[in-house]
Every structure is written in C-alpha cells, then in structure tokens.
C-alpha cells in the first residue's frame, strides 16, 4: 500500500476528509458568530445550543412527523431563526446599551436552559438519524473512498459560506448591513431601519447554526450535548482568526479542521487539544488574531 511518512495514504486521506468535515462546521459556526458579533457586538453563547436544536428539530421532524431530510434542511433553520428573533426582541435588545459581557452571560443562560430541557426529555445518549438515500455509499476516487455524505457536508457548507460572503460584501443589502455595523446612528439617519436589520442579522446567524445542526445530524449522533463541546472549540477558532473578516473566519475554520484531522493521524493524543494549543501560540505571536485588527 502507498505510504506517506509511514502512514497509509488511505488513512491519511480519510482523516483529511474528516478534518475538512469538522472544518466545515467550524467555518459555518464561526461565520455566524462573526456576523452576529459585527452587528450586535455580543458573543452568542447560545450558538452551540442552536446547532443542537437544529439537529434535534430535524430528528424530531423525521421521528414524529415523517418530515424528510430535504424539507428539514430548510424548515429546521427557519424555526431556529425565528427562535433567535424572538430571543432578540424579548431579551437581547435590552442589553445593547450595557457592557458586552451581559450579552455573553444571557446567551450562556439560554444555552444552559436549552441543553437542560433536551437532556431532560431525551437523555444524554445520542439519537440516530439516517443518511438520506441519495448520499448512501461512497465515491471511489482511485486512491481513496470518499463517503458521499461527507462530500455533501463540505460542498453544502462551502456554498452557504460563499453565499453569506457574497450577500454581505457584494450586494446592496450587505452594503447597508456593513454601514449599520460601522455607524448605526448615521445609517438610521439615512432612513435604513437598523433595529430591523439587527433583528434579522441575529435571526440569520442563528439559522446558520441550525443549518449546520441539520447537516451534522446524519453524520453524528443527535445528542443534547453535541453543541456545547463544539462551541468552545469554535470560540478558540474565532480567537485565532479574529472576527474582523468573513473570509478570514471561513478560512480559519476550514484550516483548523484540517490541522485537527492531520493531528489525529500523526499524534492522536493531542487531537482534542491542538486547536487550543494553536490559539495559545497565536496569542503569543499575534494577539489580535490572524485576520483581526487591533482596536
């Protein structure tokens, strides 16, 4: 069998794909965090719980209402987004004038509530969600087998990330959004409804987390705790990349996923901690983050 650095190429490629898959999730979630942070100046701790909620909604839709994967991929983020809007209108909007830390604390409390509710209802063991029929099996690429569903996760997340980048950087709506981020008062004076944009941005960021959750559902077991461990890694990703740039978040997310995958091949013991170690190194060398601007 062909080997690179004493590692069978099959295993290397397999881990590389898995790395890209987890990188896709890092990218989608850190992108959502960055979009929300840009507009609302809060770190959305609920993000992990919303990712879990998205996956659970897909599973519940399948289990209780026979709603399939494709409708769930649309409906579940929609519900999560509406949930986010309700949270923003009923709670978050009262905190904008205060220290940013209160937003973090509030969303942390919400994350605990969501996690606790689902743990109470379904226990901590995972619920299986089957891969949609279209994505059963694998592509034979000659040097490796690529499971179709993994390929789909990477493609779908890249599409969503690119679409988000395009809307924010290249459209009129995005221009208004960036203006509102830069100077909300002045933008409002030009007749743009900033509070509405803030609300929709938060809803969109939440929906993005829900979408990631549905994508993840067939790949991993749907469990109430799936979000909380992931979100802390995503925080580290955000610290490494800095939240200043959309493309920066996407690239950092994907890159760290790949690094994590490679660590699993070469030094498996460190695979859970490698992202945090990189964060520590980046903090020493470039405290503002790779794509961040020091304020």
């Amino acid at each position, binding site marked *: 069998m062909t080997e690179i650095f004493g590692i069978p190429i099959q295993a290397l490629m397999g881990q590389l794909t898995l790395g890209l898959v987890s990188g896709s999730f890092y990218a989608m979630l850190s992108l959502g965090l960055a979009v929300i942070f840009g507009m609302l100046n809060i770190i959305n701790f609920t993000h992990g719980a919303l990712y879990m909620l998205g996956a659970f909604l897909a599973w519940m839709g399948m289990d209780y209402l026979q709603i399939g994967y494709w409708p769930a991929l649309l409906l579940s983020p929609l519900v999560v987004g509406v949930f986010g809007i309700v949270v923003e209108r009923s709670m978050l909007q*009262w905190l904008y004038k205060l220290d*940013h830390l209160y937003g973090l*604390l509030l969303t*942390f409390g919400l994350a*605990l509530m969501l996690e606790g509710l689902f743990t*109470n209802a379904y226990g901590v063991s995972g619920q299986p969600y089957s891969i949609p029929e279209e994505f059963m099996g694998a592509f034979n690429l000659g040097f490796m087998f690529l499971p179709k569903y993994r390929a789909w996760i990477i493609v779908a997340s890249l599409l969503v990330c690119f679409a988000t980048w395009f809307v924010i950087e290249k459209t009129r709506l995005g221009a208004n959004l960036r203006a509102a981020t830069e100077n909300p008062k002045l933008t409002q004076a030009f007749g743009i409804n900033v509070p509405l944009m803030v609300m929709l941005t938060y809803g969109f960021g939440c929906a993005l987390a829900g979408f990631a959750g549905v994508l993840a559902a067939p790949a991993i077991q749907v469990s109430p705790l799936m979000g909380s461990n992931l979100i802390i890694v995503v925080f580290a990703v955000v610290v490494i990349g800095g939240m200043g740039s959309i493309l920066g978040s996407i690239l950092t997310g994907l890159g760290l996923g790949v690094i994590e995958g490679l660590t699993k091949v070469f030094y498996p013991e460190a695979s*859970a901690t490698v992202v945090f170690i990189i964060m520590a190194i980046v903090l020493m060398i470039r405290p503002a983050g790779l794509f961040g601007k020091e304020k």
Partner: protein
Amino acid sequence: MSRSMFGYLALLVLGLFAPFLFYPVLVMKVLCFALFACAFNLLLGYTGLLSFGHAAFFGTAAYAAGHAIKVWGLPTELGLLTGVLASTLLGWAFGSLAIRRLGIYFAMVTLALAQMMYFLFLQAPFTGGEDGLQGVPRGTLLGFIDLANDLNLYYFVLAIFVAAFWLIYRTIHSPFGQVLKAIRENEARAISLGYDVAKYKLLAFVLSAALAGLAGATKMLVFKFATLTDARWHQSGEVVLMTILGGMGTVLGPVVGSTVIVVLQNELADKVGSLVTVIMGSIFVVCVLLFRRGIVGEIAALYKRMLGLKT
C-alpha cells in the same frame, strides 16, 4: 465601619455554630464554593475581567492536592499547598496569555484554555479519567487532629475560608485594590496615570487563580475525591452565576450567591434531575435582565435609598 465589622462578627458566630444547625458537609461545600466565588469576584467584580475558565484552577488544584496526598503520601497541609501551587502556576501561564486580549475575547480565551485542561485531565493517566481520583484520605491536621471527623474538618475548612476571605478583603481595600478598581472603571485612564495595567491584571489573575485553587483543593478534601466535573466548563459557568446572583463587586455577594446556589442544587438534585440545569440557566437570564446588581447589590441600593429619603 464599625457597623460592618459587627456584621462580619455575626457571620463568624453563625459560621461557628452552623455545623450544629445544618449538615456539616453541606456547610463545608457552601464554604468551599463561597471561597471559589470570592476569588472569582476579585477578578470580575473588582478588576472587570470576566474569566470563563476558572474551573481549570479549581479542578487542577483538586487533582494536584489529591495526587499529592494519595500517591505521594504528603501530609494534608502540604497536599493543599501543592494544589494551590499548581493552580497559581497555571494562573500565571493562563493569565499571561489571556490579558493580551480584552473584554469578550478575554472570556473566550480563558474558556478555551480551561477546556484544554479538561481534555488533558480526561486523558492523563493520574486523574483516573471518567472515574476521577477517588478515595483520597483526609489525614490529620498538624499530625494529631483527625480530619476524618466531620466536625474537626469543618473548623479547619472554616479557618481556611476566614483566612482567605480576610486576605481578599484586605486586597480589595488596599492601594493595590484601588488600582484594580481604577482599571475596571477606565483602563485607558489608568494607563495614562502611569500604572502598568498588564502587571496589575496579571497579579489579580494569579491571586484569583491561587484562591480558586485553594477552594478546589479544600473541596477535594471534604469529599475525598476529585473528578472531571470540577474542571468542566459548567463549573466555570456556575461560579459566574454565583457571583452575579449574589452581586459582583460586593464583598459579601459571592458568599450569598454561592449559598443560594449550593443549597438550591442540594434541594433540587433528586427532585427534578437534569432540570436543575434549566433552573440555573433561568436564574442566569433573570439576573442579567432584571437585577444586574445581584442580591447584595440590590439590598445595598435599597438601603441607601431609604437613608436618602430619611435624611
């Protein structure tokens, strides 16, 4: 001033009689978490730094002290000291990294670093993984006071708490504490006045980590084990909750907050199961939305208002 001294004395008397009124182990748990929250408050309430990773210091000290006592066979006092030393060193390392970022990033960095420690403890051979480090003997104090007796241990824990509380009180009311408050209120101005803000922040962080470690090591001694729960991020969140609920930036707030939370958890644990997390989350949300000054802060504000009306 004399009136607040009177208040502290009354609390001390309550502390001395508490084991006869309540279950001693529960009161010891309250004291350990009160110390943990007071140490945390030094950072959040008086320096304005929100650390979301204090469980790392709590857990590290618990493991280090447990290992020192159980495996190395050190006497109890030296075991606790080993725990504090470990959390102090870790606090210095994490602090130097975390103070490079401000505000929200500071919280995320500390959370991520603490999660790294969690994974290390999960994999390290000496922690016992998911089972934890079990059956640590309490040993004796000064070689002749048997700490296996709950009442003896209680007064030892109370003494630790009072000493640490006094240290925190002195720190807050010292010139050093005034500089910390200045940094909390306006960092840029503190810099312009010539204070080496980074150094002050780091020192506050290390002190807070050391005392959080003392709390963790003491808690390990009370329960005779250290587990992953001590180092998990839920624990970091819980100490934030205790401090906010009691009132951050108040001397007694963390004590009140931790008492409420520990007693509540104790009461609810077998009644509502995993809904405890939901209740903790709801308290968080209510605190942040409705009373950000916390219990002690609100009472103090009310008291001031009443005085203002009278005079």
